[in-house]
């Protein structure tokens, strides 16, 4: 399966009377986009605001971040099974508007987290401060249940991204990248001396605020299965996840998964990257056992030599991570796990809630308990009155001057476990 990804680099985003891209500037007709994404009976009002890198703006609470994309050639459409039919995507050509994202904001439950600061120290902790953000604020009808609210905002965000993505269809991209994964028998013939490497992509799937969808299917109902990496670039996986701001995978991260990107970069040179095994993170222990048995079985069936496993979230999924790791290792396959840490504010506590001696190759994306002070911002998009009760915030977090003392787990994407982060480690 071969996908050409045409990237169109956007320099600025402005409201205008027509939606178009002109000389690298994205112009949005606000009335038209509101009409396109409106109409949900669960939402009484939608507004859109713009936030640019360097602006003194705090966006919170953030639900999802989505990159606008569109299918230009090949089967299917973007976000299959949700906005498009269930044709298998991932081949042909797709265009993406880079440096711009839809951000959905609004309080779905009382303690929901997710802060994106567009300037200051907080901006350094989130990759999403580098984008021109088109923030969609959807106000629910009174008394709306959390499930319906989450579903409504999820759909509004995807529709907004698809609306903007549509503009990219007829634009000549600034660069075109090609990604190709051949059937495994062909790639093994082509690269007989290269180690066969797979990616086990763990998806958070535990219920309200913890869900992920694959071709429209609630991923808690799947058994582990194989995907071409390029299917994911076309929106085969989307986020319905509101908690764990620092280490959940927003839809933007699924579309731009850093591990997939890196494995492709080494494909045909150092490794033979044969594909992605998706699996879930469920509440019921037998589900965890079954899913990890199946990931190990699939890894062995594919004859893999090495596997990269990424986690989503913290706590309960630590058990899935370790089960996947030790069962795949038991098949004689080397693993590297990619995670983050909740090691206390001083970083001295046990990092994960589960462990095994086979987990001896670990990439960390940071300690989510690290505490920082976010300075006051001139403008808030969303609301901060909830900050004392968000994850990583605490009683007295929100100070009278508008500054906030929080653990970095409150910042969207701060310790993302696919490596789509700004934190790094240096040895001295």
């Amino acid at each position, binding site marked *: 399966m071969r996908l050409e990804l045409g990237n169109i680099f956007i320099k600025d985003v402005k409201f205008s009377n027509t939606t178009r891209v002109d000389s690298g500037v994205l112009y949005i007709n606000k009335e038209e986009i509101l009409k396109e994404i409106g109409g949900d009976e669960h939402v009484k009002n939608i507004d859109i605001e713009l936030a640019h890198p360097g602006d003194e703006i705090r966006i919170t609470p953030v639900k999802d971040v989505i990159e606008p994309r569109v299918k230009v050639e090949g089967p299917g459409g973007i976000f299959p099974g949700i906005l498009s039919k269930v044709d298998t995507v991932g081949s042909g050509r797709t265009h993406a508007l880079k440096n711009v994202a839809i951000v959905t904001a609004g309080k779905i*439950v*009382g*303690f929901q987290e997710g802060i994106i600061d567009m300037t200051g120290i907080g901006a350094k902790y989130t990759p999403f401060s580098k984008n021109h953000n088109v923030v969609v604020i959807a106000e629910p009808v009174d008394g709306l249940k*959390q*499930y319906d609210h989450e579903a409504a905002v999820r759909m509004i965000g995807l529709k907004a991204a698809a609306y903007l993505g549509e503009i990219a269809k007829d634009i000549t991209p600034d660069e075109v990248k090609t990604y190709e994964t051949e059937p495994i028998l062909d790639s093994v013939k082509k690269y007989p001396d290269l180690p066969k490497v797979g990616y086990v992509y763990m998806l*958070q799937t*535990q*219920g*309200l*605020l*913890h869900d992920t969808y694959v071709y429209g299917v609630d991923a*808690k109902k799947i058994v582990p299965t194989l995907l071409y990496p390029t299917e994911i670039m076309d929106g085969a996986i989307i986020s319905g996840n509101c*908690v*764990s701001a620092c*280490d*959940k995978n927003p839809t933007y991260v699924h579309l731009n998964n850093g591990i997939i990107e890196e494995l492709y970069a080494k494909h045909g040179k150092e490794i033979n990257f044969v594909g992605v095994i998706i699996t879930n993170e*469920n*509440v*019921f*222990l*037998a*589900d*965890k056992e079954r899913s990890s048995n199946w990931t190990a079985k699939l890894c062995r069936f594919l004859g893999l030599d090495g596997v990269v496993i990424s986690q989503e*979230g*913290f*706590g*309960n*999924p*630590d*058990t899935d991570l370790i089960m996947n790791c030790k069962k795949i290792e038991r098949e004689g396959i080397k693993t590297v796990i990619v995670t983050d840490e*909740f090691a*206390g*504010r001083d970083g001295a*506590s*046990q990092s994960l*809630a*589960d462990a095994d001696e086979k987990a001896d190759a670990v990439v960390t994306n940071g300690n989510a*308990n690290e505490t920082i002070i976010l300075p006051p911002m001139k403008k808030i998009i969303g609301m901060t009155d909830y900050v*004392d*009760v968000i*994850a990583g915030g*605490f*009683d007295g977090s929100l100070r009278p001057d508008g500054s906030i003392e929080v653990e970095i*787990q409150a910042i969207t994407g701060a310790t993302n476990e696919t490596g789509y982060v700004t934190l790094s480690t240096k040895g001295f």
Partner: protein
Amino acid sequence: MATIVTNNLLVLKKMNDKIAVDFKDTDLIGILTETRNRIHRGHVLLSHPLSGSIKPNETVYKSLIISDDKAELDLDSLRLIESAIETTLKFIGMKEYKWNSRTLEDFQEIDFTLISSAVESMI
């Protein structure tokens, strides 16, 4: 077959007709230690003791599913519950929150939906 041990009244109210529910008027650690005691008596843990990605000091409700059958001590269950207690004590040591009633209702709902997804898998 199995029993839910919980301190969440919403779970008692909504699940009582589907599965045995043992409501305990205690805190989160109380539910974990009650479950640990039952594991020592030979029951097997059927749902994971940590709640999704919600940190243990961010919720006060906990519902766990444990087998009604008894056998020899299940070491996997014991390891999971001990590790969950250790993690919970670590988080509670960092910061305890004061929640408003709206947030507490949300916590009840989330605990309920998390345990519902486990019950759906089981039945």
